[in-house]
């Protein structure tokens, strides 16, 4: 099979599957080496962008999913086929940011950083499948620890958690500033 044919098959697979399809599954179906398939799919992503195709490939943790281009939103919403997605409340977004950067993290740690209770926000985020319970911490009260989901990566167009925008480096300065205060 030539690369073009492989790409064509992968396009068919992604189209039919609709949901995120893992590199593992694609490789198994094609009976091909994972690295080889990865190279091909990455190439496809670039080509789709370069050719200004109406479909783009959303990557997240070695899964791939077809979606429309955000810049076509105004056209596509004219189809009236789905309700527009709602954006998160400020509280939920703050909570999500904390979880994203600090995972795995407990609720009380989140509450501490925000200075307010975050129960409702966490609930919303779990409902929207942006956050999930990772398990429990083996300490008193066995608190639940939270982390972000793959869906979070996809919605925020992040290939992996490493692609999160860098945090402002402010906390490090604290020690310097206060170090000098005491004589």
């Amino acid at each position, binding site marked *: 099979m030539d690369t073009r044919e492989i790409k064509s098959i992968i396009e068919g697979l992604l*189209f*039919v*599957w*609709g*949901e995120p399809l893992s590199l593992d599954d694609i490789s198994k179906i094609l009976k091909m080496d994972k690295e080889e398939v990865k190279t091909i799919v990455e190439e496809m992503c670039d080509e789709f962008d370069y050719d200004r195709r109406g479909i*783009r490939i*959303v990557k997240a943790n070695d899964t791939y*999913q*077809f*979606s*429309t*281009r*955000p*810049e076509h*939103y105004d056209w*596509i919403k004219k189809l009236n086929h*789905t309700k*527009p*997605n709602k*954006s*998160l409340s*400020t*509280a939920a*977004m*703050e909570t*999500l*940011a*904390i979880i*994203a*950067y600090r995972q795995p993290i407990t609720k009380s740690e989140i509450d*501490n*950083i*925000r*200075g*307010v*209770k975050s129960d409702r926000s966490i609930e919303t985020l779990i409902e929207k499948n942006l956050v999930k319970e990772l398990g429990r911490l083996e300490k008193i009260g066995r608190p639940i620890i939270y982390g972000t989901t793959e869906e979070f990566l*996809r*919605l*925020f*167009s*992040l290939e992996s958690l490493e692609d*999160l*925008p860098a*945090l*402002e480096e*402010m*906390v490090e*300065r*604290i020690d310097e*500033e*206060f170090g000098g*205060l*005491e004589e």
Partner: protein
Amino acid sequence: MGYKIVLDSFEGPLDLLLSLIEKQKIDIYDIPINVITEQYLDYIEQMEILNLEVTSDFLLMAATLLQIKSKMLLPKVKVEAEEEEEEDPREELVRRLLAYKQFKEAAAKLRNYEEIGLKSFTKPQEDLTQFEEEEVDLGPLDVESLFMTLNRILNKRGLAVEDFDLGAIRRDEYSVKDCTENILRRLEDSRTIKFSQLLRADSSKNEIVAYFLSVLELMKAKTILVEQEYAFADLIIRKNEIGANY
């Protein structure tokens, strides 16, 4: 009143404090705690006047601010050499403010990402049942699950186990009536048939017996004539054209 909306828009006490600090361009590392505490308490008062719910988080922060303020007023106590250096009473608060600020900014950045993400649509999965049952990879199967399945059907369909008796069904399938009808139908197509033609290589005893009984019945009714060239030879069956009173 526009003021209320502004009041309402803080996510918590840290958010409020940050906004007070930013509005007055105060150095976050050297917060004039007197001024800030005063403004903070003013704000809480406003909230109460406007009948906004002041949550315990806001009250707790007020207490913290007052505590820091009082600590700042105390003269510095000389600490013994081996003890740790005395902390600036504001340090913990500043630490929290900075941490919160950091994530507030991160949230603002993520908001842009979200905006883009919300503008793209995926499509639902195609119906994959069209491929179902074709690509089944069979490993060792479990007899128990086979019976659980059967039991489920029986329950669901209201059938008794007794109705599911093996022997009864077999007899049923090779009833003399069925066999008789079949012989007659076959005789419509051809003038003669051999008894062996009624059977297959894997015909069960039940089936053979049922056919034999049918032949006897039909002979008795003079519907058919049966010939046999020699002992144990095949039976040749033909329609009895004259005496048919079946």
